[in-house]
């Protein structure tokens, strides 16, 4: 998947070269089977293929170049970590993917076996020395969204430079205050790290970039209302995944181009699947690269995925920082308030109660014309597994059928999942 020209760079990053090669090989094969085999793909997907083929190559080189210029690299695992502030500090913000089953056995020496695959993956990637993003980070920002992560970060901190951000679990005024204080504390941490004082214009710039990225994906999602579906769910997921680690300005431009192409396609009535193909919404846990298992199975079962209610999906892009208010703001404090307002709208399952999410899923299903919802929870993920029951109830009341899936990154349940998903699609058809 990448050239040996990068070998020197990987060696410098202290990757385990053999293990890393193995990972790239699997990733490349996976990508070929799941992505390149698709019919009628958009031309703009070339960008996706390119980014992915260079994910451990060119992009890492860019990170090293940025570092050489004195910029800092911040890694995160959660959409609660405000990218706007990272950008305001002129640092690079990358989402650490953790979507593959690698280094799991090593991870299990540090975290309990009954831990979700996402946690095991980020720990495993580090211990197995196969992730050049993790190795490039100056700081990894963790957050207290679930007990699994909270405790895993304690162990992880023995291996990377960790900073922990507290995320509230309710949405009262005092919780708002807590997040507001955490925004400030994160900003100060960035200032310490970069030696730069963050000013009003810096934050405004950060907000503009992050909002721009979110608006591009919002535009894409709006186009997905069309029937026939103009883009596959796999490609859409990939776009959401790439949004976490490609350069945000380049990403925004490319996605806007892609949206133009999609518009032209919709005008011609073309799509990736025939008109009338059953449309499904995926809802639940984040699907980090290269976790393409579920959309691949769904789209191999005669359905098309038209939306992702997930952190690698709508939850990350639905809300913008208020642009008018940002334009009028004159102090850092005001801007931190606006950021806090935006982030408090995130409907992560770690909140209690979290009823907004139920409405959001129902709204999304309606807007996108989805006939059914597949709720996805990683095995051992308490928050999302719990919410599956509530989501089901809400959707049932609206007459939208739902299928709850609990799985991990392993492949041993693929046949069973196929049967369940195909059967679910059959119930929508006949």
């Amino acid at each position: 998947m990448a050239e040996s020209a990068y070998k020197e760079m990987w060696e410098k990053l202290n990757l385990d070269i053999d293990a890393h090669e193995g990972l790239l090989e699997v990733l490349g094969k996976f990508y070929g089977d799941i992505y390149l085999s698709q019919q009628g793909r958009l031309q703009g997907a070339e960008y996706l293929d390119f980014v992915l083929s260079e994910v451990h190559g060119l992009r890492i080189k860019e990170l090293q170049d940025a570092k050489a210029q004195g910029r800092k690299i911040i890694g995160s695992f959660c959409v609660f970590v405000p990218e706007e502030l990272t950008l305001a500090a002129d640092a690079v913000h990358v989402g650490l993917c953790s979507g593959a089953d690698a280094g799991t056995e090593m991870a299990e020496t540090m975290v309990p076996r009954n831990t979700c695959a996402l946690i095991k993956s980020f720990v495993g990637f580090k211990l197995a020395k196969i992730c050049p993003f993790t190795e490039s980070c100056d700081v990894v920002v963790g957050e207290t969204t679930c007990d699994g992560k909270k405790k895993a970060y304690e162990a992880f901190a023995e291996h990377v430079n960790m900073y922990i951000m507290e995320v509230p679990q309710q949405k009262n005024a005092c919780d708002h205050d807590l997040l507001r204080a955490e925004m400030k504390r994160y900003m100060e941490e960035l200032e310490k790290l970069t030696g730069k004082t963050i000013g009003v214009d810096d934050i405004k710039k950060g907000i503009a970039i992050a909002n721009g990225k979110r608006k591009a994906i919002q535009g894409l999602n709006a186009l997905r209302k069309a029937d026939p579906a103009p883009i596959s769910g796999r490609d859409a997921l990939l776009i959401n995944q790439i949004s976490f680690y490609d350069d945000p300005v380049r990403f925004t431009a490319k996605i806007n181009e892609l949206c133009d192409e999609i518009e032209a396609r919709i005008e011609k009535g073309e799509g990736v699947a025939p008109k009338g193909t059953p449309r499904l919404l995926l809802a639940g846990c984040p699907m980090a690269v290269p976790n393409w298992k579920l959309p691949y199975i769904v789209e191999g079962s005669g359905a098309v995925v038209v939306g992702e209610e997930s952190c690698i999906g709508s939850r990350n892009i639905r809300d913008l920082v208020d642009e008018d208010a940002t334009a009028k703001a004159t102090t850092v404090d005001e801007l931190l308030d606006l950021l806090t307002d935006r982030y408090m709208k995130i409907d992560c399952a770690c909140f209690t109660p979290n009823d907004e999410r139920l409405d959001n899923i129902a709204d999304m299903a309606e807007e996108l014309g989805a006939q059914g919802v597949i709720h996805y929870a990683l095995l051992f993920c308490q928050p999302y597994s719990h919410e599956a029951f509530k989501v089901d109830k809400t959707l049932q009341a609206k007459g939208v059928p739902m299928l709850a899936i609990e799985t991990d990154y392993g492949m041993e349940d693929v046949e069973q999942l196929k049967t369940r998903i195909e059967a679910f699609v059959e119930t929508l058809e006949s």
Partner: protein
Amino acid sequence: MFAGIDIGSRSIELILLEDGGVVRSGRLPTTFDPAAQCRTLLDGVRPKRLVATGYGRSLMEKLAGELAPGLDVQTVTEIKAHALGAHHRFPEARTVLDIGGQDTKAIALLPGGKVGKFEMNDRCAAGTGKFLEYTAGVFQIPVEEFGTYALQGDAAPDITSMCTVFAETEATSLMAQGEKPQNIALGLHEAIVKRTANMLSRVGLQFPVVFAGGVAHNPCVRELLSRKLNARLGEELLVSDDPDMNGALGAALWAARQS
């Protein structure tokens, strides 16, 4: 003529329909070469359409060209096939339970035999035919006789493990403690039934219930399940003479319906 073939983990069943009636049925163990078994079953058969179901359903799509050029092959899931088969045999049925070799499914039926809600075991073989096969091995009894043997028990010890392998361990340790083997066998059957009843309640159990799949032959599971579901008079489980052909029948019906 229309054909339905159910390629399961343990056996393969074939049903041929003509003018709405079954004209031929056949059954072979799956073995390690299911393709060869399919060929044998379909030897000389030229249906207008063949619908495959079961765990190996996609195998038939691959075999299609080789079996007969231009043969129209389609697939449906076991869930749909069992719903169609059960509805055909028992039009009044509201719920279907299918316990096969490696899967257990509970299906709520809508009018007309459509699937409402369904549940399926994920990942492991707990509570499936495999569980019985495996544990019967501990008693060195053919699985076909295991149910009758278990019915001789009078007090079932609690088998707490749903895991096939752990349940075996539990059974052997109960034996070591001197528990009557018939009772242990009964306990193992109880364990399956408990799990199955939970699954049925998750799809919103409604009577009448059709019990299909190979395990429906097992008298002990049938007996315990009727008791557990508290079947009132006239609401016992509906079991056909050949419950293991239900999936193939459903597939054949779907083949015929597509005209």
